[in-house]
């Protein structure tokens, strides 16, 4: 009895610091945002109130919906492109690279960029896609273009490319893990039972790697969805995403209540996606028993 009490106390002690931390730096800020979202904009700043005008404005004013849809579109494209690039790469690593050393090097080649500042990696694409950039110099020197073009930078395509580059490790890692976890004899059994290599992939490997695909998709989508830097660096006028709008509300527009409302809407969307993803993953739980 006393032992149980003591162990409960000590486990409380171990957990208390992270709990305090989480409370102070996660729940309190969200609480503040939540309260602000009901306040009212009164020139030049804003005053306490309890009204739903900010949320109403988000629905009524089409520009917010447009930015939201654009953000979803870009995040979706980034996730899709990442998936199309990451899956074959992870498959290649797991199934075609037989030497563990080579596999490690190729895997680290994907993970290593995460150790470089995110800002730097995004900025790199400015130097690749810009008018003085690597791509233009190459195209001009090979004679494909007569003069540097400005079509590569400051648009949504540039954002998708940049964000894909930045977030693709988060797609490769879970897919690699999922593929590696599939027992090799399952594919052998499928071949043994008369299926070709392609049929085996469609019926065994792909379904069993779906948890990795879902995890990767969720991560790249949520990370791109909340991104603020890429639109700022390579996005241009029609590349603004929801995080930039929020930043503007807290900055130049000085409309914290509206910014808070927008931030909470975004939070709800991301939490919904994560919950859905969890559900989908739960379907495939406990498989390798």
């Amino acid at each position, binding site marked *: 009895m006393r032992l149980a009490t003591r162990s409960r106390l000590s486990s409380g002690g171990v957990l208390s610091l992270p709990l305090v931390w989480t409370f102070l730096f996660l729940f309190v800020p969200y609480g503040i945002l939540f309260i602000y979202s009901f306040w009212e904009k009164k020139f030049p700043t804003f005053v306490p109130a309890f009204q739903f005008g900010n949320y109403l404005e988000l629905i009524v004013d089409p520009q917010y919906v447009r930015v939201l849809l654009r953000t979803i579109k870009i995040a979706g494209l980034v996730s899709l492109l990442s998936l199309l690039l990451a899956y074959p790469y992870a498959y290649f690593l797991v199934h075609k690279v037989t030497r563990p050393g080579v596999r490690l090097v190729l895997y680290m080649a994907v993970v290593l960029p995460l150790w470089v500042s995110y800002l730097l990696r995004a900025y790199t694409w400015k130097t690749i896609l810009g008018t003085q950039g690597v791509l233009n110099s190459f195209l001009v020197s090979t004679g494909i273009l007569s003069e540097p073009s400005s079509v590569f930078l400051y648009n949504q395509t540039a954002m998708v490319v940049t964000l894909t580059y930045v977030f693709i490790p988060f797609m490769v890692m879970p897919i690699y893990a999922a593929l590696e976890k599939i*027992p090799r*004899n*399952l594919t*052998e*059994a*499928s*071949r*043994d*039972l*008369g*299926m*070709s290599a392609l*049929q085996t992939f469609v*019926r*065994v490997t792909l*379904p*069993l790697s779906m948890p990795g695909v879902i995890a990767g998709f969720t991560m790249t989508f949520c990370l791109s969805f909340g991104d603020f830097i890429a639109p700022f660096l390579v996005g241009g006028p029609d590349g603004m995403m929801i995080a930039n709008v929020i930043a503007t509300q807290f900055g130049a527009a000085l409309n914290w209540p509206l910014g808070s409302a927008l931030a909470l809407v975004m939070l709800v969307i991301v939490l919904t996606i994560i919950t859905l993803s969890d559900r989908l993953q739960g379907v*495939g739980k*406990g*498989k*390798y*028993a």
Partner: protein
Amino acid sequence: MSEVIRIENLRKEFGDVIGVADVSLSIERGEYVTLLGPSGCGKSTLLRMIGGFEAPTSGTIWLDGEDVTDLPPNQRAVNMVFQDYALFPHMTVGQNVGYGLRVSGVPRAQIRARVAETLSLVGLTDKADASPAELSGGQRQRVALARAIVRRPKVLLLDEPLSALDANLREQMQVELRNLHDRVGLTFVMVTHDQSEALVMSDRVVVMRDGRVSQSGDPVSLYDAPANSYVADFIGATNLFSSPVKVSGGKILVSCFGQELEIDHPAVGDAPVGNAPAGERLFGFRPEKARLIRSNGSVPGGNCLKGRVETVLYHGATIRSVVVVGDGRILVDTLLDDTFDPARHVGAGDEVFLDIEPHKIMPFSRDGAS
């Protein structure tokens, strides 16, 4: 009977390591053949080459008259039961069993019928909609079997099919598997490292060592007439000793740990006479072929060794006595039948005589590899 598999000079090298060294083997239709040997002897590699999962370095595999050496697994009429079953976790039991039929363009209704029929064959009719994760080890084993036989392969390959089961279930499945073989009439080729499993289940046991076939034969002949000391030692226990052969007074005599024994075997009739070490051979006898006699001071007649009991091990149906003879140890098994009297049996420390009939001593070649 006709031949269903013919393997000719099959060889598999993994870099510098030779997995299978020029094995030739013929398997009859309907036969239950076991590939037996310790780990690393090449038995699994041989099985995987028949299945198409390993490409041979050289040699040929004929399946029912067709050269399948270079065919991928999905184009061979053989199916495999994998060691840890390899059931598809994202499919039900029924889908697992029907998996191999979906490819052959079999109509759905017929797939259902054949799946049901095969599941009833292995006694799992009510589990068709269960997930493999819900099944016990023995049930998964049956699903793996059903999945492999539903396609009616020319040969069923079994890679250590019972090794993941615990002892009781394993013995039960040995009988079931053998019964299933007799019922469905397919050719079974099974890999195992368990000699008793091989003896119980097979029509023919192929004992392998270092990538080669050491001996191939039915269980009785393997046990009674092992071709070499390796087989003698691997299948059952054998008391092995090395000795020159000497002929004296019309008797052939050998020395077992310093004591003389008479042997009587046609194969040593023309053995070299004399004590030259070059003439030394290996001899052996089974522990149950010798009889223990408690010493009462006088030397009994017959073909006897004198020794002292070191340990007595109780095995249920038999008692195994470890007897120290000279600088060697000899095992003697005594059957615990109705005539056995525990009060009169030997105990540790007893001086004993060990009686063995001359014709029960088996001669082997020196290197044991013949």
